[in-house]
């Protein structure tokens, strides 16, 4: 598993994907941050920044996961992974953790933005921390979804676009859920709404169920990924 993790991590920076992701993340995030806080001359609008970041994650994070399995399948390099003494779970986790590491590293670098806030004002530190925690978990879940979609197709582009669509749908589903009559369907739709679960974080509440929700979302996606790969061996 560690070998796969290290290889993927290196591969991000042997190909332009790692640089593209880090660059776009920092530039877009910096711009939105400047617009929503520094230019607005207010730290209370920080919530807006985090809402923007969700949308940006939905589009940017698939860049990290799109090639993880699709490319292996296309170039047939998955054969060496699947015929080596490594479990499929190990393969999936190795790849996921590599994507998560690049995401987390960029995320940490991005946090420098918040330091600036403290220089020019007195923002609510606990609110910012809770938001950071929430949005990081959301990103981790998006990565797992991206990995799942990458395992389904041989085409990177399809993997990326379908992941963007699914992520966007999960962000927007709360809007639809509000207009659904049936209680059953409303509950089901709400379950998929990553937005609804984010509310406690913005309210500075450490909601364990929300944390578990995001983690289990990622876990389910990763589990399904192992199933997709396992199933392909049988068909």
């Amino acid at each position, binding site marked *: 598993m560690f070998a796969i993790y290290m290889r993927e991590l290196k591969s991000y920076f042997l190909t332009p994907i790692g640089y593209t992701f880090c660059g776009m993340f920092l530039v877009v995030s910096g711009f939105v941050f400047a617009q929503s806080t520094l230019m607005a001359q207010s730290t209370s609008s920080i919530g807006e920044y985090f809402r923007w970041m969700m949308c940006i994650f939905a589009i940017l994070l698939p860049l990290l996961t799109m090639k993880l399995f699709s490319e292996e399948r296309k170039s047939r390099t998955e054969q060496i992974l699947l015929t080596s003494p490594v479990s499929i779970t190990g393969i999936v986790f190795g790849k996921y953790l590599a994507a998560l590491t690049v995401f987390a590293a960029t995320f940490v670098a991005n946090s420098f933005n918040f330091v600036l806030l403290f220089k020019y004002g007195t923002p609510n530190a606990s609110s910012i921390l809770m938001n950071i925690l929430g949005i990081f978990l959301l990103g981790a879940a998006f990565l797992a979804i991206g990995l799942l979609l990458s395992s389904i197709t041989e085409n990177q582009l399809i993997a990326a676009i379908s992941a963007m669509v699914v992520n966007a749908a999960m962000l927007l589903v709360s809007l639809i859920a509000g207009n659904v009559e049936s209680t059953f369907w409303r509950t089901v739709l709400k379950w998929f709404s990553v937005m609804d679960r984010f509310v406690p974080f913005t309210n500075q509440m450490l909601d364990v169920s929300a944390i578990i929700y995001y983690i289990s979302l990622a876990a389910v996606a990763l589990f399904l990924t192992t199933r997709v790969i396992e199933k392909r*061996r049988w068909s």
Partner: protein
Amino acid sequence: MIEIKDLRKSYGNKHAVNGISFEVKEGEILGFLGPNGAGKSTTLNMITGYLSADSGSAKIDGTDILVDPIKAKKDIGFLPEIPPLYTEMTVLEYLNFVYDLKGCRLPRKQHLKEICEVVKIWDVGNRLIKNLSKGYRQRVGIAQALIGNPKVLIFDEPTIGLDPRQIIEIRNLIKMLGREHTIILSTHILPEVQAVCDRIVVINKGEIVANEKTEDLINAVDGSRKLVAKIVGPEDEVLKALRSLGGVKTADSLGKRDTDSISYMIESQDRVDIRKPLFSLLAGKGWPLIGLEGMELNLEDIFMRLVGKEGKEKDGKKARKGVK
């Protein structure tokens, strides 16, 4: 060392592999032969655990690949049809990755250096795989299979797309590896198995049609031999004499291929060696024989005969099909 029992795999309605059983003993080099689409790769993919079989079992050194895949896979070095190379890495980066992936415990630097020297890629160690030629890529693929010194090596068409010199190099390499490893070599090139393998398994349409010692198989199907003889002498008379020689089935002129001799294609009857009588005949007549070569039997020939025999067997004895 390798034990395969009644392996089956279907894709939808198509039976890609339909009940294949054979064994490979320790230290043996087995040629796995069959035309394209016969199910060779599918079988190898099942043995190595890349695909799962619908039924049947494949055991490596007593370990079933489906029951304890991790243990079984440790004993296998596999070169798939398309070498699984990460082209954005350098050769050494890639081999180091495979070393870690396989959880190899041999001394890293020394082990990798040894392998690189065996397959002659040490000089390209720091080049990106995407910039390497096909021959070098194939060798990196073989190097990858050798990491960890596995007991079993499985090569799926290792010489495809290489130039003749490289083919000979790779064959010699496989022969050398055969001293310490048990090898399955899949190919559709007959001279390759003749040169390298101890035993041959031939499959067609997912079923085994022959499983024999290489020599036995070649002799058995090579009963009637085709020879090309270069003879200096009057064409009509030579032909006449050839046709009247005992044991000759057909003799035809292939025309003048160099300045003074004429080439003839001579086909002998089954299991008759006509080379000695041919020489005596020509010597007696005073026609110099300046060249004589056997036509190399190719897989198609062997194959047609095996399949032909299969057809006959169905009415009568069942001699060729099945396991030895």
